[in-house]
Structure formats: structure tokens, C-alpha cells
């Protein structure tokens, strides 16, 4: 993984000193809340419903064991002993004290971590495929380019006060595990006819109030032009993005207003005009960065039948929670943060410490966070899988449900967030309880449920096979159900099926929907494929069949 050099360390240390000064000025009354707000946001600090929330950056989801231990330590000493992993691969602490935050950031800086630009109207954490570097058939590992973008975007003098937040995701695989098509910029690694590396560039994707799938503005961008082209896009956006209405300030609105053709023309013109002065990405720099992400020293091993002859629970875990690896003798292992009855994405300090130790023993000391709010141990010897499972299970981290209905995404909702309309955590737990029977869960196969507590769509409900959106109706929580969304390979936005349902009815409604699937599916057909084949109507009818009273 990337290691800070003297420049990086000096930078984060100076950033901490700056924020310490800003916090002092705020607490001393020299900076009003309104003046302090944009400064604290650019350091990851929100003021939430009950307390501040600190969002700590995990660049492209990669953590070392000592970093994970530091997160546990911080959660224990400055918070309530747990943290929440987000869809953008970061970690949120829900209860830090404002006055402690500079010290928390100083401690994070000792392990090369920070909370810079995890909120505010600036370039946010750059995210990547969590199977980067290990998945078969990848064009190239996206993480070196993510790190280059991270550095370039860090306190960018021109682009720190954009019209709105700006999210970039990079993938190197055909299968899009980073939801790149719903990012402000999605970069897909590819090669040109001469084998040269570069990117397909998508722009203007995003969820929120008006969900949009990103559009291609460049079919192939040579690698060395990466930063120059990003500067061109950002400059057009910075100058012309709307600033009069927060709900129309994302780049997707500008792209839509101009049309993608005119937007592209403006970007290309800007790119050509600015190239001479734009940051150069030399082959040497790329090589230097790639060296940080070289494969670990794998042993030469043959693939084995790791699950054969083992107990049924282990076989289920092997099947659902592990993935193939491009190196024989290894598997990638999901650490499920979706234990039935727990908050999706939450993890206790004790669990973090335990996973850090397991990573050191069994996976080269590295841990990844995933867009789906789980962790991943990327490089586990197949012969160690059983030992790893036996260690994870008593920690509550081996629920064999990855890719199933209970491996759902949910935002923190009304329990924490000041924007939310709805208690998403309650709904998520209800669903988990209703679908806790593993045989039933496995019979349903691959189904993605995504739950957001408000229009801002942090839970990505638009791109869930089943999307759940909390809405406020005269002070009561109701839930809108949509079907047919997808963010994986074939990005699609779901369609609302009908009237909202009450909180206690959400899980039952979902059960009626999946029962329609069970009745209509062809042999081996996934939920989303049945839905695409037969259309929404039977699902809509089934969902409300028992419920004429829905409002």
C-alpha cells in the first residue's frame, strides 16, 4: 500500500495544526458556526442530530492492520467503542466531542490517516473496486491512480470550494464494484489498440434527489493526461456549476443543462488550452506509485478443495463469503458486517482489533473496506480458510450472507443523521430478522436491498434491486419501495412500485415481493433477471396484495 513520505507527513501534520487553530477560534467565539462550518466539513466533521460525526478517510478502502487498530483505539477512547463503515469506504464515528477532534486527527496522522475532504464541497475520497489487484481479468490495478488523484485533489488551491461535493471512482474490471456510473466522475481503466493504458471517462453520474447515470465524455484518455483532464472537467464545473440552489449544484445538473456534447466540447477546449501548465503525470511518477501496490510475496501454491469434507456451516461461508483470487492457492474473504440483528456496516473496537490481528497472521497485514459496507481480507491461503472462519465466527463476523438479501446497504438514518426522515436501522434489522433463515435466504439467491433515510440517497436506494426510501408524511415515517435498480455492470435506476408503506410493513412487503419472484422464476434465474423478464406488474400486485390499507 501507499506509504507517506516526508511531504505527505508534513502536509497532514500542518493540516492538523491548521484545524486545531480553526477549532480553537470557533470555541473562543472568533469564528461563528456559519464561518466554521465549511472549514470543519473539509476536515470530515459534521454536526449531527445528537452529536458531531467525524468521517475518517480510508483512501480507496485500503487499511493496514496498525491503521485498523488505531481506528479501534480512537473509537474506544474518543467515542462509544464502535464505528460505521460507509458506502464510500470511509469510517464514521458518531459520538466524538468537538473539542477532541483536533487531537483525534493528530492521532490518526501518526498512522498516516486523516479525515480531509470526506465532506464539504470539494473532491471527496476516491473509491475503487474492493477486489482491485486480485480479481481475475483486471485491466490494471486502479489503486495507484486513485492515490495519484487523492494527492492531486488534496487541498487543491483552485478546487477546494466547488459548487457541491465531487466524487470520483476508478475501476479496472468489467464488473463495476465501485458504483462508478453513479459518481461525478467514473474512470474505467482500459488499453488502446497499441496496448497503452488509459481511461474511459464518464461524467455526471449521481444519486440524490435526481438520480442520473454517468455519460461517457471520452472513450479513451491516455494515462499521462489524467490530471490535466480532471483539471479541465473541474474548471468547467467550478466556473459554470450552479451555486444558487444546493439541489441543482452537482455536476450532473450542469451536464444535463448543457447536454453532454456541449459539455464535452467545453472540457476538451479547456484541456487543450490549459495543458501546458496542467500537472504532468510522468511515466516515472506512475511507476513510482505502482510500486507501492505490487502484489505481496505470494507462496507458490496449488488450488485446493478447501471446503470439501468440512462442516456445512463452513461450506456455506466458503460459498458466500469468499471469492476467487487470480493467484492459485488463495481466496479473498469477506468479513461480514451484516450480522442478523446488527446495524449494517457497524463494527466494534474489539472486532477491529481482532480483524487487524487476523490480517497480520493470514492476509499480509492488509484489510479493505467495500462499497457494500463489509471488510475484505484479500489474500488468504486456501489452507488457512478454515482457521480464519473459526476465528471470525465467534466474533460475529462470519454470517454467511455476502451477496444475499441480508447483505444490504443502509445509511445511518434518523438514529444519527440530521437530514434523515426515517429510522433505516430499524427497517434493516426488521428485514434481517424476517430473512434470518439461511436456507430461505440461499434459495432467494443474489438480491441487493439498499435503504436510504432521505432523498440524499446515501443508502443508494435508486440502484438497489429492491430500493427502500424513507419519507416523511405529516411527521410519520413511511417507506417508498422501488424495484429494478442496479449498479453492477448494467447500471439502472429502480422504479417506485406504488404507495409508501408503514415502517412495520416494510419487511413483510419485501417478503411478498420475493415470493412473487419465487413463483415466477425460471430455473437458476436471479431475482433481477426475473424482474427484467416479466416486468414490474406482477411484483407490484404481489407487494400490495395483502395490503389494501397502504397509504
Amino acid at each position, binding site marked *: 500500500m501507499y506509504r507517506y513520505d516526508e511531504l505527505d507527513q508534513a*502536509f497532514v501534520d500542518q493540516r492538523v495544526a*491548521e484545524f486545531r487553530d480553526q477549532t480553537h477560534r470557533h470555541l473562543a467565539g472568533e469564528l461563528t458556526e456559519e464561518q466554521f462550518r465549511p472549514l470543519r466539513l473539509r476536515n470530515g466533521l459534521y454536526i449531527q442530530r445528537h452529536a458531531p460525526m467525524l468521517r475518517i478517510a480510508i483512501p480507496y478502502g485500503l487499511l493496514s492492520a496498525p491503521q485498523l487498530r488505531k481506528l479501534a483505539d480512537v473509537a474506544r477512547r474518543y467515542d462509544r467503542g464502535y464505528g460505521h463503515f460507509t458506502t464510500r469506504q470511509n469510517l464514521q464515528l458518531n459520538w466524538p466531542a468537538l473539542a477532541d477532534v483536533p487531537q483525534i486527527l493528530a492521532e490518526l496522522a501518526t498512522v498516516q490517516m486523516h479525515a480531509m475532504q470526506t465532506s464539504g464541497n470539494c473532491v471527496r475520497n476516491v473509491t475503487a473496486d474492493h477486489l482491485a489487484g486480485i480479481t481475475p481479468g483486471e485491466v490494471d490495478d486502479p489503486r495507484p491512480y486513485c492515490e495519484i488523484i487523492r494527492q492531486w485533489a488534496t*487541498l487543491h488551491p483552485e478546487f477546494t470550494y466547488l459548487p457541491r461535493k465531487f466524487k470520483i471512482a476508478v475501476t479496472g474490471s468489467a464488473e463495476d464494484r465501485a458504483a462508478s456510473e453513479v459518481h461525478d466522475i467514473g474512470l474505467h481503466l482500459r488499453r488502446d489498440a497499441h496496448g497503452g493504458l488509459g481511461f474511459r471517462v464518464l461524467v455526471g453520474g449521481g444519486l440524490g434527489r435526481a438520480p442520473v447515470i454517468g455519460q461517457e465524455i471520452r472513450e479513451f484518455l491516455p494515462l499521462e493526461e489524467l490530471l490535466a483532464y480532471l483539471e479541465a472537467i473541474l474548471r468547467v464545473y467550478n*466556473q459554470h456549476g450552479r451555486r444558487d440552489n444546493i439541489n441543482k449544484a452537482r455536476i450532473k445538473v450542469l451536464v444535463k443543462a448543457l447536454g453532454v456534447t456541449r459539455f464535452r466540447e467545453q472540457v476538451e477546449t479547456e484541456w487543450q488550452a490549459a495543458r501546458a501548465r496542467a500537472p504532468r503525470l510522468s511515466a516515472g511518477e506512475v511507476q513510482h506509485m505502482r510500486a507501492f501496490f505490487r502484489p505481496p510475496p505470494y507462496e507458490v501454491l496449488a488450488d485446493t478443495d478447501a471446503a470439501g469434507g468440512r462442516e456445512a456451516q463452513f461450506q456455506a461461508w466458503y460459498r458466500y463469503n469468499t471469492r476467487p483470487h487470480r493467484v492459485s492457492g488463495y481466496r479473498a474473504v469477506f468479513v461480514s458486517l451484516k450480522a442478523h440483528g446488527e446495524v449494517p456496516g457497524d463494527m466494534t473496537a474489539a472486532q477491529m482489533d481482532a480483524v487487524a490481528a487476523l490480517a497480520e497472521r493470514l492476509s499480509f497485514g492488509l484489510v479493505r473496506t467495500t462499497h457494500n459496507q463489509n471488510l475484505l481480507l484479500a489474500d488468504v491461503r486456501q489452507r488457512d480458510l478454515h482457521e480464519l472462519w473459526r476465528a471470525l465466527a465467534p466474533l460475529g463476523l462470519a454470517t454467511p450472507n455476502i451477496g444475499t438479501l441480508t447483505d444490504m446497504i443502509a445509511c445511518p438514518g434518523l438514529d444519527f443523521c440530521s437530514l434523515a426522515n426515517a429510522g433505516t436501522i430499524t427497517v434493516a434489522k426488521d428485514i434481517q430478522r424476517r430473512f434470518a433463515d439461511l436456507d430461505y435466504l440461499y434459495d432467494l439467491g443474489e438480491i441487493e436491498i439498499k435503504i436510504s433515510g432521505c432523498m440524499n440517497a446515501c443508502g443508494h436506494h435508486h440502484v438497489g434491486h429492491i430500493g427502500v426510501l424513507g419519507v416523511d408524511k405529516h411527521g410519520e415515517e413511511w417507506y417508498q419501495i422501488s424495484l429494478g435498480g442496479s449498479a453492477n455492470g448494467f447500471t439502472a435506476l429502480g422504479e417506485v412500485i406504488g404507495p409508501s408503506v408503514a415502517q412495520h410493513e416494510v419487511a413483510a412487503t419485501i417478503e411478498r415481493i420475493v415470493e412473487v419472484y419465487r413463483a415466477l422464476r425460471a430455473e437458476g434465474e436471479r431475482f433481477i433477471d426475473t424482474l427484467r423478464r416479466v416486468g414490474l406488474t406482477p411484483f407490484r400486485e404481489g407487494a400490495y396484495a395483502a395490503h389494501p390499507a397502504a397509504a
Partner: protein
Amino acid sequence: MRHILRRHEWVVDEWRYQGEDGAESEGAALIVPLARWRTDAERWRTWSGPLGVRLTPLDAVAELAADLARLGLVAVEFPNPGDGRGYSQGRVLRERLAFRGELRAVGPGVRQDQVFLLARCGFDAIELAAGEDPEAARAALTRYDVAYQPGAPGAALVALRRQRFLSRDA
């Protein structure tokens, strides 16, 4: 009397904005809004003193290209700290249009916490928002001594010890 942070020193501002007392007296250093620069073009051709133009966030700097040689100053307005359009205007003026006169940041959005970024974008004169601490603003120029991106030419206010990405023509 107005003071501005010019390079590293607080100095008395010899420029006057149009509409201020004595702004249009003989030989005065006068800053006019871009709109007046256009509508009264004839008048500025014979103006006896130094001339500057003040831009709002909506003004397209490229339109000034042909006029820059006659301008001693461009003032870029920051209506609030969150409005970042002026950073792009400043960089384009310095980098693409090679403006070498005084580039000044002005407006309610110019606070000490913006000063470092402004300087990195090529601003060499800071007219602080009312109520801001002048010494703190000067000190803000040295908050960082490293950076990742190339700075705009003329970003002499900030002394960097190390910098990561260089510009192509560096």
C-alpha cells in the same frame, strides 16, 4: 485608509474603486467594474493614471485578454468564502493569459482561511473582509510549506519547501 496585504506586507492601498472619494481625480489609480470598462471604453483610452478592473464571479476572464496589457490590476470578487469561482479566474489570468500586474482578492469571502489557497492561485494582493485579523492573515501564508499541485506562476507569496506534481512546462 484601506490597507492591503501585498506580497508579505500590509501597505496603504493607493488604488480607489470607482465611486469612492477622489477615485476619479487626475492621475488616480482607478479600479472600475468590468461592465464600466466596456461601456466607457473611450474614456479609459485617455485616462491619465493606472487602471484596474474588478471582476464578479460571473465575468468571463477570457474576455479581458486583449485589455490586460493596459491594466495594472485585476480585482477578483469573492462574495462569500464558499464561492470558489474566483480561484479559477485568478489561475486563468495568471497562467493562460500571463497577466503580470497585481491580482487582488476582494470581498466578504476573503478571510484568513482562504489566504493560502488564494496565494497558490496567483493572487499577490489580499484585501481582507471586514473584521478579519490582518496579522493572522499574513501568518496564514506560511501554514503549509508543502503542496501537491503546481502553483500558478507569480504565486510568490507562498514559499514551498517541497511540491509533488509539476506542471508540464516546468
